[in-house]
């Protein structure tokens, strides 16, 4: 465990040094994420000029939901995104060899190599959005509730991470995993919607239960808004475990097929 913490810290140091080298880039990308988050918040604000509730959620409850979705996404982007995407490219090009020679679990090494400090910085903005919404709602969560919220957000990050690793691992079979990026962003659109809005059976099965992108944000947000629900929280925790196990399984299966492409 300590060994991995040391490896991770080395990667983090490297990423931060790199960011300091390309300060302009860092600035532009921080702005990009900030802009996109504002777009989502503004959309909510405009819609609520014309309606009182969306599937029973008031304006600031929705802001809290969207804030939670942003928080999970920022963490995923900050800690894993670049590494996971490079993994897809490396599998195709054969540069993946490099990870096989490293002193640690391959999946760990390949998915934690790069941090994106801009996303991590923006996760503070996302957290501020959540706190602001909670204040507006007059919520006064207990320390236990906050800890549970954090745990549920963590489960969300694990689920998103696993879905991504799983999809990119398909590159072991298909050699190309291009376009998955777009699919991921389409899915996150659903994560900004309240669960109760999914009235159709097909959409409910697909996005709420099968691909838990909706639950990932709804469970932590409702935990603050409506209070703790043991079944839902346990369900999210369980699906985080299942998805993670599936990702590990598929990744390792794929790894066996990896033949290295370069000569």
């Amino acid at each position, binding site marked *: 465990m300590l060994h991995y913490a040391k490896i991770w810290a080395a990667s983090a140091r490297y990423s931060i040094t790199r960011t300091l080298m390309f300060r302009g880039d860092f600035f532009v990308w921080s702005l*990009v994420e900030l802009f996109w988050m504002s777009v989502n918040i503004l959309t909510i604000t405009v*819609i609520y000029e014309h*309606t009182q509730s969306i*599937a*029973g959620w008031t304006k600031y409850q929705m802001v809290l939901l969207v804030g939670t979705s942003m928080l999970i996404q920022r963490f995923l982007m900050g800690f894993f995104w670049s590494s996971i995407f490079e993994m897809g490219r490396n599998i195709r090009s054969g540069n993946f060899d490099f990870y096989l020679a490293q002193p640690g679990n391959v999946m760990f090494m390949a998915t934690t190599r790069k941090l994106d400090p801009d996303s991590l910085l923006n996760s503070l903005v996302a957290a501020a959005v959540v706190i602001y919404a909670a204040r507006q709602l007059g919520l006064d969560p207990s320390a236990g509730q906050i800890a549970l919220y954090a745990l549920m957000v963590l489960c969300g990050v694990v689920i998103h991470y696993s879905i991504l690793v799983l999809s990119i691992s398909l590159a072991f079979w298909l050699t190309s995993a291009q376009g998955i990026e777009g699919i991921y962003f389409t899915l996150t659109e659903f994560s900004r*919607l*309240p669960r109760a809005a*999914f009235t159709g059976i097909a959409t409910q099965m697909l996005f709420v239960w099968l691909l838990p992108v909706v639950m990932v944000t709804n469970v932590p947000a409702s935990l603050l808004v409506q209070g703790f629900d043991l079944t839902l929280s346990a369900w999210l925790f369980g699906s985080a475990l299942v998805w993670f196990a599936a990702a590990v399984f598929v990744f390792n299966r794929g790894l066996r097929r990896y033949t290295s492409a370069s000569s």
Partner: protein
Amino acid sequence: MFAIFDKYRQVFLTGLQSNIVYRFNFAVRGFFSLFHLAAVVILWSAASLGGSGGIGGFSLGQTITYFVTLLILQFFISAFNEDYQISEEIRNGLINQFLLKPINYFAYRFSIFVAARLVSGLVVIVPLLIALPVLREYLAFPHDYRVLLFGLPAMAMSAVIQFSIAYCFGLLSFWFLEIQGFVILSMALETLLGGQMFPLDLLPEWAYAIARCLPFYYQMYFPAAIFTGRLTDPTLIFQGYGIQVAWVIALLLVNQVLWSRGLRRHTAVGG
């Protein structure tokens, strides 16, 4: 005189061929847009239920129709990766060949853009037809032929604006190594102010007035609003044409300036 057109007609035909190769990619992209539409339907249905049964004076059907129209327009007129293609040609020196030939780079690129959008526009009809049985109950297009009469010129000019903005970003490669950050930054603005998150008439009066002066409004929202009957007052439509023409001219001028300035910095790497 005709020789000039013939030149770009050939470019267009070649562009058509090379884009037909990607018909499958466009179809997949179109298919995934259906997921986006599903999210739109879920969100706006819930919002309309939570209000007075409509949104901003329009029925749920009209609202969904607006988003479906946007989707179709997107595949017919919006720039996909033209900015990156131009950026690539500048960075790896492929652009040099055009400097030596009697060909206008903007016109050349625009001909390919028109061909590409023709292909992607026709291809997106397939997934939409598949979704039609579900979508049909939400569709509420105005039954008025004038909508087409007013909308098509706006749509054509929107295509020019879309392309010109992408072209501008591509040309930034004369100055910057990486344009991706700029492109995504402006994409956020375009998404919001072009009306892709919500119909712009839902904005508060003052914000809508500002949006109407910006080029993004004429990139997508303007033709979509005409086609879906959100914008019906002829005075407002003709006012819109006026501003749209002004933006077309302004963007073409900016392109010209960027091109001539950029070429002065260009070092023609590779070839």
